[in-house]
């Protein structure tokens, strides 16, 4: 069985990015949108890993970055969920379309 090459992985990561973006633009539920953002983040992680492995196999920079991103993503999720909970308290809903007071 042939091992997957760089292009395969880049294809997956691109697909993952656009799936995330699509979810972010179309979903109205904030939790789902948060999940979409995680997808986008992970597509970036995949890119880092893939380039590290195929282009500079002797180095570990990409891997370190990925670990950082995972840590930051965890923190970000905590903040985002805190925001969502507050939004729910004030709006009795986590529908993003209900929270549009900040406009012209």
């Amino acid at each position: 069985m042939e091992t997957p090459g760089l292009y395969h992985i880049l294809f997956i990561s691109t697909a993952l990015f656009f799936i995330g973006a699509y979810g972010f633009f179309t979903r109205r539920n904030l939790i789902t949108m948060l999940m979409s953002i995680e997808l986008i983040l992970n597509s970036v992680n995949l890119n880092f890993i893939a380039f590290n492995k195929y282009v500079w196999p002797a180095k570990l920079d990409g891997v370190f970055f990925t670990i950082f991103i995972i840590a930051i993503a965890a923190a970000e999720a905590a903040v985002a969920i805190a925001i969502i909970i507050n939004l729910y308290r004030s709006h009795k809903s986590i529908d993003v379309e209900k929270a549009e007071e900040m406009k012209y």
Partner: protein
Amino acid sequence: MFETISIASIVMLPLLGFVLLALFGRKYIRRFSGILGTLLMLASTVFALYTAWHYFFVMGPVNGAYQTLLPLQFNWLEFSPGLSIDMGLLLDPLSVMMLVVVTVVSLMVHLFSIAYMRGEERYPTYFAHLSLFTFSMLGLVLSTNIFQIYIFWELVGVSSFLLIGFYFDKPSAVAASKKAFIVTRFADLGFLIGILILSFQSGTLDFTTLIQRLTSPEGNEFKNAISSSFIGVSALTWGLVLVFIGGAGKSAMFPLHIWLPDAMEGPTPVSALIHAATMVVAGVYLVARLFPVFSVSSPAMDLITYVGIFSALFAAIIACTQTDIKRVLAYSTMSQIGFMMFSLGSSGYGDEAGLGYTASMFHLFTHAMFKALLFLGAGAVIHYVHSIEMKDMGGLRRLMPVTHLCFLIGCMAIAGVPLLSGFFSKEEILLAAYQSNKAVYWVALFTSGLTAFYMFRLYFSIFWNKNYLSHSSDQHHGEGGALVLLPLIILAVGAAGAGYIPFGKYVSSDGRPLETEFHLLFSIAPVSFALVGILLAFWLYKNKNERPEAIAATFKGLYHAAYRKFYIDELYLFITKKIVFPLIGRPSAWFDKNIVDGLVNATGNSTQWISAKIKGLQSGKVQEYAIYFLAGVIGLLFVFLYVIK
């Protein structure tokens, strides 16, 4: 050194009065505001008299000439080391004389106003304005440089505006105050340009330096000022003529006199102070202050002479036909200032030639006394009969004996009856005119006859003519209390006795005492003219008769023209309304409204229009923002990949 404090307090006490009365007058010291203002004025007058005594008698002339002193001078605005505007106090015979005139007349007017203005709603405000005026007039008189005099000049204009428009609920008073302000302000434009020219040519603002530089024939400044010319007239003459225009505006010289008769809408004591004795002579004072420079330029001097003599005659003719007693006095003021002006204009500088200068200042001094007296007397009469028209008066001599006597003294003084003050000063003026210009002399002689005629027309119409028809409102007040009569009596003494001051000893063109001789033979002509005028007035107005109407009917055209003030007001209205407004004013207004405002509005409107169109982008929806963001990123990507590379 002179006591600086006492001189400064002459000026500062009225200012203090203004501040106190304006801030606290209405609420806390309403009833005493008149007395407070008068007391401060009294203190100021005492200081002024003390200064005059000290200056003329204790210090006296040094080497035969009175010195110019600067008891106080400091840099007020320093633009660069070479260019600064100073403030200070200047003492020379001229300013000391004016100090006495202004403070004494102002004190009398304050005294008179205490009773005259009682019961007015804005009693404290009135005194505050009066103090402000006195302050600015004193500041003007004591100015050390031409810029300082300009500042006080404008302050005088403002306080005059406030006082003329004191009865601001009367539309005519409002119109009069606006007219006075605009006309004098218009003239001050000339003054300002004149200041700029003179100070540019001489390189200084200071009076002493300026006079010295512009009169020494060897100096560079003088040569430049004479040689550089514009339309065939030297820069020096231009500067002087423009300064004179400013003076003519304040002094109501033809053709800038139109504001003075209307200014009689103000309270009568104000007319006595501002429009008779002090402010209107500011123009004369200004010319006298710069007299050494003026005397260098004969075209400027000729202009002053002819404007002066024409105004004197012109106003005297109008005064003969007016029926409003204050307007008669206003035109008589204009005529007398014309006398002062042509006397200055026909004078030379130094020693014997400076007779006209001394005569002019002498007349200024005596005129202040008798004209203030006449105005205050007229005020007392108006207060009594509640009218300003001659036809409502007549036969008041028994009802107001003291006023009658004082008014008679004032009339005789202005008419030039021998042994009263006006006789001496007018005689000197005529002598000066006789020595320099015969034509001016004859016109002046005729005008002084007219003066006697119209003053006694006024006198007989008020106090004789017919029996006074008393109406019920007269019962509760008589002639007026001591506060009304005291200033009249003091001024009457001044008007009678001021002529005996050997004036030439104190005030002369170069500071050296000038011996003025009294020529008995010369005075025959003026006195006989005055007597003819008085007798004519006696014949026409002593008792009510048909003769005045008959004479008016004979000279119908002239009478009507003079009654309508020679249509000068109409001419001004024609020029402004028919020429300036439609040809200059409206096109400029159109340009301003449509082009200038249009451009500004177009900017604003287009911004508004665009923002209305694009504000929908700010929708408040997070996901839309994310789409814009993504589109932006993709757009940048394309730019960096394909456009910039």
